[in-house]
């Protein structure tokens, strides 16, 4: 029996190793980037500094068309210049405007830009201890810029603008604006070929809105009372009938 058992064990071990090898081979990340396709902010850094980016905010639905410039250079949520925080309660909006300083956009590696993307990104303090917002040098893996304000084609006047309405699910955080230029790269799809942002220059803050309507509070109160009340009522009922018996 022992030799048969040990043979079975050896076979099982071999199968497991094969499974592991196959799994490791099957596990593959995305194919490596083409050498001439920039994929990181570091690679784009040498073309930074061409943009003049401003952020304006509307606070309160009364001022529908009056945007006030955001001049806060502190990323702290509690900073005085960030108050009051924007939220969805009053349909607050943010307008991001990016102007080319020289009117002409120069991309890295001599690539030809064909569009511009405006994004909102979490400030560094707002990503602390929150890995789901973690910034990454690889642009595709950067999770710190979840909101796209606008995707625009190349404009002759070098001015690009977009308006972002604060949604109901906006978290409590401070944000900066980012501009990314897109370029075609032969047969490979659009890639990012230039970027700029308002880090250490301009921030704005957002806050969570109340999400517990009165109806929900009533429902929770009623349902929470029913459960122990039923337990107590049944307990008393059984006590009563037992004593009767």
């Amino acid at each position, binding site marked *: 029996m022992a030799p048969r058992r040990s043979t079975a064990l050896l076979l099982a071990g071999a199968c497991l190793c094969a499974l592991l090898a196959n799994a490791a081979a099957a596990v593959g990340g995305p194919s490596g980037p083409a050498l001439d396709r920039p994929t990181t902010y570091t690679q784009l850094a040498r073309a930074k500094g061409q943009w003049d980016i401003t952020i304006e905010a509307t606070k309160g639905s009364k001022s529908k068309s009056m945007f006030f410039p955001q001049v806060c250079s502190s990323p702290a949520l509690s900073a005085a210049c960030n108050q009051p925080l924007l939220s969805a309660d009053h349909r607050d909006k943010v307008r991001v405007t990016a102007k080319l300083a020289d009117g002409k956009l120069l991309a890295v590696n001599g690539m030809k830009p064909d569009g511009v993307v405006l994004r909102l990104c979490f400030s560094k303090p707002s990503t602390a201890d929150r890995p789901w917002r973690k910034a990454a040098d690889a642009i595709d893996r950067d999770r710190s810029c979840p909101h796209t304000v606008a995707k625009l084609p190349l404009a002759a006047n070098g001015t690009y603008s977009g308006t972002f309405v604060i949604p109901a699910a906006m978290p409590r955080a401070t944000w900066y604006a980012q501009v990314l230029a897109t370029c075609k790269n032969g047969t490979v799809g659009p890639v990012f070929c230039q970027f700029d942002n308002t880090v250490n220059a301009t921030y704005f803050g957002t806050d969570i809105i109340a999400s517990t309507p009165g109806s929900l509070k009533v429902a*929770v109160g009623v349902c929470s009372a029913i459960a122990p009340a039923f337990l107590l009522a049944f307990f008393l009922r059984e006590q009563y009938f037992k004593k009767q018996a």
Partner: protein
Amino acid sequence: MAAAPPPAPPPPPPPPPAGTAHGPPPPRKPGAAAAPAWAAAPAAARYALPVDAERKATRLALLSFAAPHMRAFHLSWLAFFLCFFSTFAAAAVLPIVRDELDLSQTDIGNAAIASVCGAIGSRVLMGSLVDAAGPRWAAAALLLLTAPAVFGMALVKTPAGFVALRAVIGLNLSMFVVDQFWVASMFGARIVGLANAASAGWGNMGGGVAMLVMTALVDGISRHVPVNQAWRWSLMVPGALQVLCGAAVLLWADDSPDGRRPLPGAGPSPRAPPPAQLPTSLPCVGAAAPAAAAPAGRRRRARRCAPPRVPAAVLNYRTYLLALSYALSFGVELTVNNILTTYFFDQFGVSLSAAGLLSSVYGLMNLFSRAAGGAASDAAAARGGMRGRVWALFCAQLLGGVTCVLVGVAFTSLAGTVAALVAFSLATQAACGCVFGVVPFLSRRDPGLAIGIVASGGNVGSAVLQAVYFTFFDFAPHEGFFWMGITVAGLSGALLLLHFPQWGGMLCAPRAGASEEGYYLSEWSQQERASGLHLAALAFAHEAKSQRGWGGGGGGGCCCGGCCCCGGCCGGGGAEPRVASFAAAAAGPETPGAAAGAVR
């Protein structure tokens, strides 16, 4: 030497006295009010399933809902299922909740730890509650008293509130003890393993179903209300289901085949206690008159005249080895349930509902994987006895560790991750089933406490694994899976230390002269054995000879059914039990009618 005759089996228990759910109706006294409808019993006892001498079912009819056996089975696993569902409902919608409540990773980790820590102590205490009040009231109380916390999660606004409510809701996980006790009360020895494993596995599915259902609920509700309200409304559903299930348990379930057990202090019970509840401790010397002379409606409690004994399960090192094994299997399962939806959402950028669908695969495998583990344990025992069971557990646990490593390795491939996850769930959940293939043989004096300690090990393991690999140290989630798998695989070696003197261990043969009787009866003192308190365990010890396997029997080479005997007849197999090291048993509360049920 002539083989001694096998011991006479204990006499069958007395028929159910008048007034039980399955006995004749009691004679009504002249002028007495009619008994309430629920106390009336049919003239002849009839069960829908075939039963043994203890009136426990010998067959599992999954499509039946007949009282008392199958109704209790289905309500038991359903209650456990809903408890799991409620515990992990908040984790399923965490990608939305974390921004809504401004949670940090530390807050999320603390909440996950809190959700499993609450049940560490409550699992141990739940055994006592089940003994005192019966599984029906224990299940109903747990469901109905934690439901407000489940509803309250819909109104939480701060990280501290989120952590606190997850801790309270996590008490639900102690429903496992109720479930195992209840099923064991209803099903006989031949089928109880499968019934317990199926019940526990289907209950554990609640975690997987929560991932699937809650994300779909949020998706659906968010079409009518903003998404930051939708997750709150969705959390009303598990609470409502708990209330409904608690009501169903109270209205329709029985504690045992003999019917419903009265609550303590509710007066003398008209029903006989289950035969298994023979007295387990000596009455205090000089105690007052027997229970019959007690004031009507009051049950006399024996006075305590000796220091409380240390439970045998607490002094048995094997309890803690199995608790470690359960920590490395069920603890891993709890940890993964807490993080899986968020892992898919963050790592692969899939939508919330897709993340829920993918992560539900892990929990849904419980439909058959845990039962498969139990079946594998039984199959291994058929070939190799207890040594086979331990080897089955070791292999399942080791495989669980290896497949966990694969999940961590496959972090850049969604398909690879899902494939590894399927294998991981199979192995880990099968290991859970294998653990409880061994636990019933740990102790006969304190089986409930043994279950409670081992079960608590799962929660402790989850708290530690969550803290180390997914909260307080700087591991990326895929690195957490990788190193958690390494830990599980490495610590599986602790099973090499698990050794039963009468059956042996993984690498060691049984000790010469050791016997099942010697092992189990050592939990009673000589004085207690002289009083016959050990007799129920004696019958079990006789049956447990079926766990002999490789290396021959511990009882001097005898096989079960051959020359086995009870206490002192066979050469080697009947060696005198070791003198117990416990102090005199505390005189605990006597079960009414227990003296009548005692067998000499």
